[in-house]
């Protein structure tokens, strides 16, 4: 069987492989982090830097909150043939101290989650379009 080609939904936002990471930027002036990447100006009002380094963010964090969505959202979400409810988690990254939202990895339900739980970044298929599988970052409970 031939496999569908795989593409990230957004190029340059995350790495792939066994231990994927989100890609953000770090300000050369004050050292703060941004995701999605901030490259034009620093949003810290006490910093005037316009120089940034691209950095991989820590791939684990703790749940700030979570939910499961039971109704099909409007476009531009791509639903496919049949709408499948999905779980979303907001996770605070340990080093960067920022909360990033994402769907939860396939197979995990709200019952498997709790606030404060440790999660890690994985990359999974989000939707299929014109024969290509498009991937995105998702949050997966970290094996203890």
């Amino acid at each position, binding site marked *: 069987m031939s496999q569908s080609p795989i593409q990230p939904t957004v190029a340059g936002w995350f790495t792939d492989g066994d231990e994927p990471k989100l890609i953000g930027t770090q300000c050369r002036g004050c050292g*703060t982090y941004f995701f*999605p990447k901030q490259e034009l100006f620093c949003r810290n009002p006490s910093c005037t830097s316009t120089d940034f380094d691209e950095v991989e963010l820590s791939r684990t964090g703790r749940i700030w909150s*979570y939910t499961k969505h*039971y*109704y099909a959202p409007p476009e531009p979400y791509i639903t496919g043939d049949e709408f499948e409810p*999905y779980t979303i988690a907001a996770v605070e990254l340990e080093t960067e*101290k920022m909360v990033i*939202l994402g*769907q939860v990895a396939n197979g995990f339900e709200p019952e498997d989650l709790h606030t404060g739980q440790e999660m890690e970044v994985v990359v999974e298929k989000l939707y299929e379009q014109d024969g290509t599988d498009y991937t995105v970052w998702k949050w997966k409970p970290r094996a203890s």
Partner: protein
Amino acid sequence: MAKDVAILGVGMHPWGKWGKNFVEYGLKACNDALGDAGLDWQDIEVVAGAETVRNGYAGYVAGATFAEALGWSGARVLTSYAACASGSQAINNARAMILADMADVILVVGADTTPKGFLAPNAGERWADPDWLRFRLMGCTNPTYFALYARRRMDLYGATEEDFAAVKVKNARHGMANPNARYHKEFTQEQVLESPLVADPLRLLEICATSDGAAAVVISSMDYARKRNIDPIRIRAVSTVTPTYPMTSVEMPYFSTDSAAVVAPNEMSFKASIAQAAYEEAGLGPEDMSMAEVYDLSSALELDWYENIGLCPEGDAEKLLRDGETTLGGRVPVNPSGGLACFGEAVPAQAIAQVCELTWQLRGQAGDRQIAGAQAGITANIGLFGHGSSVICST
């Protein structure tokens, strides 16, 4: 402290799904507010419109649209957009003209016709727009955010699904006595808890609908009111603050927060800072409030607001609710109008409608939902992309 301005008149078009042009709703609200103020349209010096982005060009230029609809009179126009906070921005911009002695009397109006279902982002491929990306990359709707806040209340403060349902039951009861509300139906806790899950733990009856509707206020300088021998309800403060960096709370439409790794976050959350700025400007505190109108986009979100506007310490909102303090007849009724639970959201009109309710309550004209001896009240809401909104009015 900013100087007070006077509320001379208020008016609304009932909320609903009427299938008409938003201008028709707005005209009704304008004429009611003018009639309530005892003024003619041609007495008005400025029209301040709250913009709607769902009704084409006429909505983008709301101030001029209503000036034309009422009959070109040469009045100046203002149009304000701040998402759900558009109405209070329009009130504040109008107030600023009065306090700068640029005008004496101004008509503020917001009206909308909204589509059914989830509010969706602008169309097209918008890969740099977080409001578009949140839908494309994860299917993050507005109820997703309401659900994240609700779940966090459950995990942190022991809120229960019964508490969230109880907010809906309370507001539905309040709205029964409001002729401008869209829904006039009482619910039991069981009925709320039997409605389908939309975004766990929130259910269909706990998430506000989108509605058509319109609200208008006529405001003036205190001198203008005195010359007409009116002892008006006063606007004591309008807060339109933005967040401070780093913004660490999860807010629509963002799917990430600022980083707190380098700069420590403000001890006060953005939502708490909105009301705090209003209290400071008014020279009043939460203990002075007889009532509040807050943005209950979901039943659980109303509980967050209790804390954000200082009615109780963080984590105590459920107790306030369970003790009946925020129900009509309690110490500080919240959403005596019935709130968004009974109205559904008509974006540019909603923050103005909150001020209409304060005005009726403070004048003692709120009929069967009247709060005895109401002296002062606060409104609170938040507009997409960092728009704080809070208005304090008093007798």
